[in-house]
């Protein structure tokens, strides 16, 4: 899995950083945040489809991680452990939102940034207006389709397809069996295939 660590940062092992965090070193935690903030934010954004909510949930997730880092035993990677916190925080939030029924989930789909594949933070070049419109349309379709999935199915499909996580990593992050992960993937893919067939066939 990719991280956004610079070579100098990558020299410091994740485990060392975790140990320093456990000793109360906030600078070490800052380095871990820097490594994973983009991926965590991206994952949450794809589940909640709102930048501000994704930002807040990412903050909440990292705060929870800091508070409970003393309990991290290193049985899984920090990244997987962090994902467990992220998915719990996000799924809880989505469930509460569903219960409250606060209306449309997608408030900023029109303002979606279009970023070149492979780009880390900044688009390499602005797309032409019609291309941008087309991309926005595709992104909106995907967001609408993902919205149709349950929070658990969203988490599974995003971890698998966008994060490239293995079944066992997803199972650890979601605290369920590998069989459950595979079963959720089956249904999530079926549903998305039905909803997005015309998109992926024409792109």
């Amino acid at each position, binding site marked *: 899995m990719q991280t956004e660590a610079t070579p100098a940062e990558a020299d410091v092992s994740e485990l060392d950083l975790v140990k320093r965090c456990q000793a109360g070193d906030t600078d070490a935690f800052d380095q871990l945040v820097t490594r994973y903030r983009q991926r965590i934010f991206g994952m949450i954004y794809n589940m909640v489809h709102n930048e501000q909510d994704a930002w807040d949930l990412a903050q909440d997730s990292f705060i929870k991680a*800091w508070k409970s880092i003393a309990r991290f035993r290193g049985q899984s990677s920090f990244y997987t452990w962090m994902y467990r916190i992220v998915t719990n925080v996000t799924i809880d939030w989505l469930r509460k939102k569903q219960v409250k029924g606060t209306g449309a989930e997608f408030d900023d789909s029109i303002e979606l940034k279009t970023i070149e594949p492979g780009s880390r933070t900044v688009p390499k070049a602005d797309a032409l207006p019609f291309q941008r419109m087309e991309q926005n349309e595709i992104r909106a379709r995907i967001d609408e389709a993902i919205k149709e999935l349950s929070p658990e199915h969203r988490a599974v499909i995003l971890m698998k397809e966008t994060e490239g996580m293995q079944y066992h990593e997803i199972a650890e992050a979601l605290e369920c069996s590998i069989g459950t992960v595979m079963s959720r993937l089956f249904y999530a893919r079926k549903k998305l*295939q039905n909803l997005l067939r015309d998109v992926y066939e024409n792109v």
Partner: protein
Amino acid sequence: MFMKTFEEKWTAWLDGELRGKDLAEFEASLPDRAAAEAEKIEAQKLGTLLKRELSARAMGNEEFFNHQLRGQIEAESITKRDESPRPGFSWSIGRLFWTGATALALFVVCTFFVMRNKEPADQSQYLSQILNARVDPALGPNATISMFQAKEDKVTVLWVDGLQTLPAEYAAK
């Protein structure tokens, strides 16, 4: 990887996780191999689309994200410090338990001794007995003299009623 259901096997097959005997068995069990292969290609297209469209979402103001997080962590630490009790008062659960148990035992012992020495409630504190009630009829035919003695023998009350004068032997010397 042990797979029980069709959904699990199908997912593993799509992701190229089925191998050897498992793969051969699964592919042999498919009623329409061509349709399954077509669906596999569709699932791969979907995966490519999702990866391309969803993985590039970037966070703006990254440094501010860290700054805000540090601020929250600091605030949490300050709150935690303020909420934590002063060292002199930090009694553990065990210490509290033993203190409570000792106090209770002391109370039970004291109560036992107090109750043992206590007189029945229906007896007056000034329970007394008549020690002498002899009156010379010549001195006073209607006279009665009663002497009450408090139970702890510290107070004696002489109750004289119906006498004209105090007999000489009772007069103060």
